[in-house]
Structures are given as C-alpha cells and as structure tokens.
C-alpha cells in the first residue's frame, strides 16, 4: 500500500468516524451489559471498520453496517463474559438504575421498556433512539425487513400501552414504583439502556 493509498484510506475512515461516532457510542451504551464493555465495543467497532474498510458500504449503508458490527462485537463480549463468570447472569436479573431516578418520566419509560421482550425493545430503540429505518434495522438484526416492520409496529403499540397504563410518577403507591420488576428477558443484553 502506497502512502497515497494510506492517506486516502485514512481520509475515508476519518469521515466515517466523524459521522457515526455518536451513533455507535449511543448504541453500545444502551446495548451493553456493562458501561466499560460498551466503551470497549466502540473501539472494537471502529477498529474492525479500519481493518476492513474495503468491506464497509459507502453512503447511508455504512450506518447499519457499523451497528451490525457493534451488535456482533457485543455478542462476542457477552459470550466471553458468560464463559468467565456466571455472576453477570445474576446481575442481569436485577433492575438497573435509571439515568435519573428522580425523573418520573424516565422511570415510566424504563418500566415500559422493561415490559417488552428483548427483540421488541431492540428494534424499538434502534428506531426511536438511533433513528434507523426498518430496512436499516433489518440489516442490523439480520431479519427480513417485513418482519422488522411488523415487530416495530407491535413494539410501539406495546410500549405505548405499557407507558400509558402506569400511574403518574409521584404516587408512592404506584405498583411500578413500589416494586420495580426485573427486566423481561432478563438474560438479554439490553439491561443498561438507561444507565
């Protein structure tokens, strides 16, 4: 590889990094079990992108490619963690503190998300937090786009129902506040989405 090739490669990577850093960091943050794993995952994702830059699609298609890579990286992390210790499995069953537990809306969001299945939750957050289209989510989760659209529709409806069914925060007798449920699908990798 000549110096000119390397510089051209660096410029393309820089553009990719600048454009997608926030998205990948956000996804890894809410998708990882542990914040430090999420931070490591961000580095892993972009290192993979650098090493395999020729395989990274150009334009808008780069984004789902990066998210899909992040998903695989975090899956590998989870498998490695599981091999090392089963402690994390037990930790996963515990509800995770919200970012701002004093914020009643955050609490309601957290509870509503906890009521979703892990797959519903993931497609919902990829759409609503990351702004991915159904077609892009399909690339990330390796499912047909039509199935993703269906799941997304269902996830939105379930989330809305769960959210609206909660009593407004501040009511000390609210079941949601009195006895927070563990995450549905407690063994999923989405337990820190509000940490």
């Amino acid at each position, binding site marked *: 590889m000549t110096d000119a090739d390397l510089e051209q490669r660096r*410029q393309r990577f820089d553009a990719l990094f*600048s454009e997608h850093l*926030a998205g990948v960091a956000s996804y890894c943050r809410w998708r990882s079990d542990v914040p430090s794993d999420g931070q490591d995952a961000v580095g892993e994702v972009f290192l993979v992108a650098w090493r395999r830059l020729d*395989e990274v699609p150009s334009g808008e298609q780069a984004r789902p490619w990066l998210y899909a890579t992040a998903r695989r990286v975090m899956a590998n992390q989870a498998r490695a963690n599981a091999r090392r210790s089963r402690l994390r499995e037990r930790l996963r069953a515990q509800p995770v503190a919200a970012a701002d537990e004093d914020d009643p809306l955050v609490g309601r969001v957290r509870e509503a998300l906890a009521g979703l299945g892990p797959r519903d939750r993931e497609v919902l957050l990829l759409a609503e937090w990351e702004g991915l289209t159904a077609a892009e989510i399909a690339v990330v989760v390796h499912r047909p786009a039509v199935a993703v659209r269906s799941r997304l529709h269902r996830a939105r409806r379930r*989330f809305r129902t769960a959210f609206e069914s909660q009593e407004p925060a501040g009511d000390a007798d609210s079941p949601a506040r009195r006895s927070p449920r563990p995450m549905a699908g407690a063994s999923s990798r989405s337990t820190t989405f509000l940490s």
Partner: protein
Amino acid sequence: MSTTPSLKALHDASPRHQPEFDALLERYEQLGTQITSSPPDSAGGPRRPAHRRRLISLSLGFAAAAALAVVLGGLTLGGESPQSAYAAAHKALAATSAQRSGTMTLTVNGTTLSTLRWNDHRIALRKDRSSALVLGHVLGPDLQMLLIGGGVYVQHQDGTWTHYASQAEVGEKLGPEVEGLAAETHPNNALEILSVATNLTKTSGPNGTTLYTGTIRNAHVDPQMTLSQNDVTQVLAKLRGEGASDANAPGGRYPDSSKLRMIVGHDGLVKRISFIFQQPYCRAGLPNCPQSGSPSNPHRTITWSVRYSHLGDDQPITRPTASTDVPK
C-alpha cells in the same frame, strides 16, 4: 415521526440527551487517530486481539498530557478546502464569535485545564483545580484572572485577590497573558481556526449536528503561515515553526496527519473544536509521562479541545468582594 406522549418520553430518555453523553464522545475523539495509526488489514488477515485490547484501553485511559494551558486552538492557512464546507464552517464560527457572552472550556485528552468566560468586555479565566498540569499554564501558580473595567484581578493560591487598576500595570510577567486573554475572544481569533485546515469536509451528524474535519499542515510544508492573534496561535506557530523541529517541544515534529475537528450544533453555533496531533514523546516533567520521555517511545495522541457553552446566556462576571490594590 409520531409525537405521542409515550414516544416523546422515550426520545427524551435517549442516552444522547443525557448530559454526560458529550463528555463520553469527547473521550472517544482521539480514538480515530489512534486506530488509523495501526496497520490496516483490508484483506481480513488474522486477528490480533491483544494488540486490539491494548489499543482500546489506551484510547480510554489517557489523562492530561500536554504542556500548555491555553484556551483556543488554531493554526494556519491552507487553501484547498472545499468552498461549501469552508463557507458553512466560516458562518458557524462567525456566529459563535458574535455571541456577546459564553464559556470556553479547554480540555486536553479529556481533562479540563481552563475555563474562560466572557460577557461583553468582561473576561474570566479560571485554572481547573483538578488539572495536574501546572507547567506552562498561562496563570502560572495563580488560580484566576479577571479583566473588568480596564483593570485586572488575579487570584492567588491562598485565595486572596490582587487588583491592578489598569492592564498596563500588571507587569512584564502577566502583561502578555492579559493581552492574550483579551485576544482569546476576539472574533478574528475564531476565524483563524479555519485558516489552518486543508481538506475540510462537512458531514451531517446526529440530532442536527454538523461535523467538520480537516487536516493540519505542517509548517515545513506551508511556511507562509502568519499567526499572531493570541497565546494559542503564537504557541502553535512555534510548534509548527522552529519549535516543530525541536523534539523537546510539546508537539514537536508532529506530522501532517494532525487533524482539526469541529462540531456545530443544530443552532448553527460551534460546540467543540478539537486539535489532534501525535506527540513523538512526552516532555520530561509533564504529568502522565514521567517514564516515557524517550524518542524511542511510540507517538502519543494528544487532543486539545475547546468546548463552547452558555453562548448568549449573559452570565455575570463580577469583581471579587475583597482585593488588595497594587500601589501605582
């Protein structure tokens, strides 16, 4: 997009809207430069997990490591930037500089060194107490400096204040710093930042942000630079000029791969400007590199960032309640 209360609440709970998210991104800023300093492997060769882990841990583990405490970064003119990106960036910088008040926070590799606030003609510079960096700080051992009503207030380590009735009375030691401080917020100063970048590119980021990236050319490549606006540009001129050939200078001999990154928010104002370069090795005596001052050490990535905040908030800058006047 639906705007039902439930989805609005969901959007508001996004990690991107949490206050620490920007700080998280700032920690990642150096990551790109670090990665591109590793060998590419487009053919998908064997993985090197140990190397990868080390790279990542380095990227997240850096603390302050530069030698100078200044409040804005800028370099010199290159002429190859695409006009559209240049014009848009120019507009954002001009709008930011035109703000009557605001705050600039300088960080080096994620550690805050200084905070500068301005409100009209009043300026306050505060050295961050958590910064381990003392060498080269514009305030030296002092903690704060205020420019108010033509006078200068300096807060010392013991908390007491000294008042100089005019900027001309601060003496030879502080005089240049006072002049430089006033220049930090000069509109031309911000615009100079753009003049240093070549290959300026503009990309859309999340939440309406716009990212600008450019390459900083080495002074040896572009010797025609003329930088004299303030402390920062004077320092950078030194780094890029005769200082650039001095391996003992911070940033000395840094290569042409040094980068300028600028983030503009959805409001059209600059949020952060970063200057990223490889430092061949640590200067003896600087924090975090007491054992690494050797030319044989790998390059370290240094990121200077200036974060803009509270633009137009009209935050007050007031005189200290007690100070000792310096006799004329």
